């Protein structure tokens, strides 16, 4: 279980996140939605330790994440797929995937097993495994970023705007992959701008507005909530 309690984050004098609290239970899909600049990515970066919180507690089961280095997280089962598909453009698709299994050391058996799994789910990556990752299309790069995260055998996936800059058809594809990951037993924290899709897939959701979590609850209820409708769904 991932739990944030009264987390505050500042960029210099700018107080970006105010007393944010959220929980993600094992086996859930939780969405965090909000407009540009609301602080969604900041919250994810704070969870992973790329950005330091000024106060509050962040725990994953018994682990204090505030005291844990970002690079250690994957070995505890937390995989982060950063915003904007941070892949390694100058490396081949296969090398990208292998980097995802970095934390497992030289466990080649597990590597081969995970590789087969990822290639089965992402046939496009299999077709292009020798191609440089930078030459893939946007959707393929997003698949690669997710495939790479899966190579680390995660228990929880932190997805940062996986639908960014993708065509509606590809967005659907990405969301079906998220569902598939969930069916494999992976807990998911999804940060999205595409509120409709994000709420449609999630069990629960949080709405973030200028650094404050203003609304939270069952995703289906939020989809019908007047305030959410007005602010994000344009209805």
């Amino acid at each position: 279980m991932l739990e944030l309690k009264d987390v505050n984050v500042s960029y210099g004098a700018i107080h970006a996140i105010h007393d944010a609290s959220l929980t993600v239970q094992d086996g859930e899909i939780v969405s965090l939605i909000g407009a540009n600049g609301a602080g969604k990515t900041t919250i994810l970066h704070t969870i992973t330790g790329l950005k330091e919180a000024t106060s509050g507690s962040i725990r994953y089961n018994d682990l204090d994440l505030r005291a844990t280095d970002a690079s250690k997280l994957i070995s505890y089962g937390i995989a982060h797929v950063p915003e904007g598909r941070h892949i390694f453009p100058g490396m081949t698709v296969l090398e990208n995937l292998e980097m995802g299994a970095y934390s497992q050391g030289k466990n080649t058996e597990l590597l081969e097993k995970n590789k087969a799994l990822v290639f089965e789910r992402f046939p496009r990556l299999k077709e292009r495994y020798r191609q440089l990752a930078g030459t893939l299309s946007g959707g393929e790069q997003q698949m690669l970023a997710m495939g790479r995260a899966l190579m680390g055998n995660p228990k929880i996936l932190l997805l940062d705007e996986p639908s960014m800059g993708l065509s509606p058809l590809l967005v659907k594809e990405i969301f079906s992959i998220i569902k598939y990951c969930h069916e494999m037993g992976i807990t998911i924290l999804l940060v999205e701008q595409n509120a409709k899709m994000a709420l449609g897939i999630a069990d629960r959701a949080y709405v973030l507005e200028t650094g404050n979590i203003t609304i939270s609850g069952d995703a289906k209820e939020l989809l019908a909530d007047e305030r959410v409708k007005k602010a994000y769904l344009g209805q």
Partner: protein
Amino acid sequence: MFKCGRSNRMKKIESKKVAYLLNFIAICIFFGILMILFKKEVFGSRTSYFQGICTTACYTIIMVASLNLLTGFMGEFSLGHAGFMSVGAFSSAILTNYLAESGIPSFVLFLMCLLVGGIAAGITGIAVGVPALRLRGDYLCIVTVAFAEIIRVAFCNFKITGGGKTMSGITRLSNFYWVFWVMVICVTIMYMYVRSRYGRTVMAIREDYIAASASGINVTYYKVLTFTISAFFAGIAGAIYAHYMTAIIPTNFNFNYSAEFLTEVIIGGTGSLTGSVIGAAFLSALPELMRQFSNYRMLAYSIVLVLVMIFKPSGIFGTYEFSLVRVINRLLGKSTTGSTASKKTVQEVE
């Protein structure tokens, strides 16, 4: 296709061994040719002059290859690499001056010098790297410039380093034959580092440090490690330099000297160690080969640089590594798809 079966892997290791052996033989042949040329005095009275050029090329190659570890593989520019060379040169020179009368065989003393020079520079590398590598790009570059300046000014004022005067009378330990093999070993170690798990990790950091961190890579650790290794080899090059020149002065290791190495890295190709070898050898021999142009020598040098940058902006080699095995396979008409461990050859141009 993706299963790396046992038999497949065995074959791979075997061909890797063969590749290393082939390259070793090629280097030996190249060394033999040079040795015969020098021993038979083919160049007549100019033999020692040519030997000098070759020695210069050798330590320049070590410098440029070590800088390429930072610039090409880690993606961080350093404009203070001469600072590490300076640390290596002075620390080893102090050691030799101290041990000059002790009667240690000169070969052992030479090895000790290299080690001391390398370790001193490596320690400096850690000291600079730990605070500086929190920075990236331009900012790190400025810090390295500052570091080299600090070293230069400090050595100009320390009594032990001659206090701004030339530190002369260092025993001449470097000769071409030893320096050649030191260069081969250094470049081979760097090549193995780049091709190892560590090297792959460092390249991942260059490509995208956030993704690298998300994949479980301790970015700072690997940056400092690579910085230190790079400094270590720069220190070795400095030790060779000191015992070849026999007189060193801190002001020689200035900004221009650092910039020269960076130029050679870029001309050779960032991210290609064979490119560094060839770039360094070519550019350190070029000014000598153009002696007949006398005053216009540096002008011609700049023209060469401009031409390379216009027609091949990624450097002579780009990120491509020259592979002897690949060339042989192609000559024999074999398919090159088998991932034969491509190993660079250190010989080529001197």
